[in-house]
């Protein structure tokens, strides 16, 4: 089995005392508990168990301004506070390691190379909601990460970081590692819970929200790997420190997965508010466009986020700035494509994905994504018809906001934004029965 050879900016992170998630990811021993502890690991967990109340933990995380890194950006501390204080049911924490949004490959690095940092963050979150059994749901394809996580969990148990009466505090905490069955939709939190319960991974209608009624109908918090891995640093260095990083409303640091037509694709940890253009062009990060070609567009936050055109990329990577220009930070997956990329081809790739991954529970998404793929494929194959763009727009409008989970919207938003930015290219494709730019990417 292999360890992902993905490029990270660990060396740079080590020189900047404010970056933390990637500090030790190039150290091959970081996955071992002793090395992790030698690097300050489990100190935050000890601090929590030796003298912080659950409410104090929630308060620190609230004040830090940490927001969910799984895509929605919901304030983490606030989410935890939704667990009813008077509930007599068991509470559960689920770490969402289903990572499958095209472009996103950051959680895998943490799971494979710094698994204890994820366990430590999970443990602190579990304590904050008074949970004694926590789960990590890892996508089934990540065989190596699953193995690593199991080893880490067993070591943590053996060394008393998990288990009974941890650090003599009287607190018990156990951990279950669960592997998925291959379905993008299981990353949606209620689908994840259904999957964990042994059902088909289809989303649930909300309310009730998981914090009230989640796994086994008990209060449950679902958080992304990166969100949880950020928690120990917040506990150790304080809410004020964390909130001083990044921008006013987007505090802290974030990992961006850079992929596509850049010279140096990789995973880069930077403070939120980092300039997108710099991420793509700076020699320390993306290093510019492959073959020094002209940039055509960027998907800033994973396959479900609206496109940016080259004029828009001098922008801060934070939740608000991207929202202002009609896009989203999402999972932080920056996908770059150059001038030789046909927009219809790109959208076909994305739409095929969403159609394939639609769980089929609601009609607009199930049928709509199928029609969209069919029409877009027809255009791509040179058989587009007059009125196809309008038809696509009409289907999009009938999906948007009418589905149980956000996958429907996710499928539609990139399409709508591509038509907005490159309508002439769509039109050309239909009229001339071919791409405006010939797209053929060789692997070499």
């Amino acid at each position: 089995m292999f360890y992902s050879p993905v490029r990270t900016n660990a060396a740079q992170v080590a020189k900047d005392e404010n970056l933390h998630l990637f500090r030790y990811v190039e150290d091959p021993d970081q996955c071992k508990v002793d090395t992790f502890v030698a690097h300050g690991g489990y100190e935050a967990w000890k601090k929590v168990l030796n003298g912080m109340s659950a409410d104090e933990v929630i308060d620190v995380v609230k004040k830090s301004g940490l927001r969910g890194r799984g895509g929605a950006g919901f304030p983490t501390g606030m989410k935890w506070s939704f667990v009813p204080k008077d509930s007599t049911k068991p509470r559960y924490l689920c770490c969402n390691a289903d990572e499958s949004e095209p472009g996103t490959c950051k959680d895998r690095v943490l799971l494979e190379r710094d698994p204890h940092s994820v366990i430590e963050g999970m443990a602190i979150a579990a304590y904050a909601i008074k949970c004694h059994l926590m789960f990590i749901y890892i996508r089934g394809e990540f065989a190596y990460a699953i193995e690593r996580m199991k080893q880490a969990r067993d070591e943590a148990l053996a060394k008393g970081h998990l288990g009974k009466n941890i650090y003599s505090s009287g607190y018990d905490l156990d951990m279950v590692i669960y592997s998925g069955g291959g379905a993008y939709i299981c990353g949606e939190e209620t689908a994840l819970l259904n999957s964990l319960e042994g059902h088909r991974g289809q989303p649930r209608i909300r309310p009730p929200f998981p914090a009230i009624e989640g796994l086994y109908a008990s209060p449950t918090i679902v958080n992304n790997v990166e969100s949880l891995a950020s928690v120990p640093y917040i506990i150790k260095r304080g809410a004020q420190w964390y909130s001083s990083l990044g921008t006013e409303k987007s505090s802290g640091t974030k990992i961006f997965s850079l992929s596509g037509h850049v010279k140096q694709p990789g995973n880069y940890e930077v403070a939120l508010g980092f300039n997108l253009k710099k991420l793509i062009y700076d020699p320390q990060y993306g290093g510019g466009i492959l073959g020094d070609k002209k940039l055509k567009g960027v998907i800033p936050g994973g396959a479900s986020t609206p496109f940016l055109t080259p004029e828009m990329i001098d922008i801060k990577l934070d939740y608000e700035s991207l929202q202002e220009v009609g896009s989203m930070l999402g999972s932080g997956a920056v996908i770059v494509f150059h001038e030789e990329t046909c927009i219809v081809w790109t959208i076909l790739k994305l739409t095929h994905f969403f159609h394939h991954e639609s769980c089929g529970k609601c009609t607009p998404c199930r049928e709509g994504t199928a029609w969209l793929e069919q029409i877009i494929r027809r255009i791509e194959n040179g058989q587009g018809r007059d009125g196809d763009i309008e038809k696509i727009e009409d289907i999009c409008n009938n999906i948007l906001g009418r589905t149980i989970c956000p996958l429907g919207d996710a499928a539609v938003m990139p399409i709508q934004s591509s038509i907005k930015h490159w309508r002439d290219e769509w039109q050309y494709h239909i009229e001339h029965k071919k791409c405006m730019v010939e797209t053929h990417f060789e692997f070499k």
Partner: protein
Amino acid sequence: MILNQTSIQKIKERAKEFPQKKSAILPALTIAYQQEGYVDEAIYRELAKIIDVPYVEIAEAATFYTMFPKKPRGKYLIQVCHNISCALLGADSLVEYLENKLKIKKGETTEDNLFTLITVECLGSCSTAPMMQINQDYYENLTPEKVNKIIEELKAKA
């Protein structure tokens, strides 16, 4: 019985970890797949007995996920990611390359039952594109030379 004692024992151990027995369905399917390379109705029936849940629950779950095919595939299952990040770096031409090299079309299995070639959705390896997964292992940053070497090594091992 199709499932051997080791698998049955593993499933029973896993089942103990969960507060409710249905949660053992996916882990049980995974263990069965690891043993046989497929999971069909006969295996669903065995699993239903081992973890003590209705047959339909197993069948319903199993057919939803992509990782529990009902029919066996080649010894080496080659899954090429063809989503956007990989496609931008030539995933489609990687598929063609493998088709030519293995003399099969995607979706097919070689005559000697060694290789099955399929395309799959994003495998979370976007910054190391193009990539493929063979059985459990990821192969990333692929080039024609690397692919040649990987395939030759697997052939030699078989």
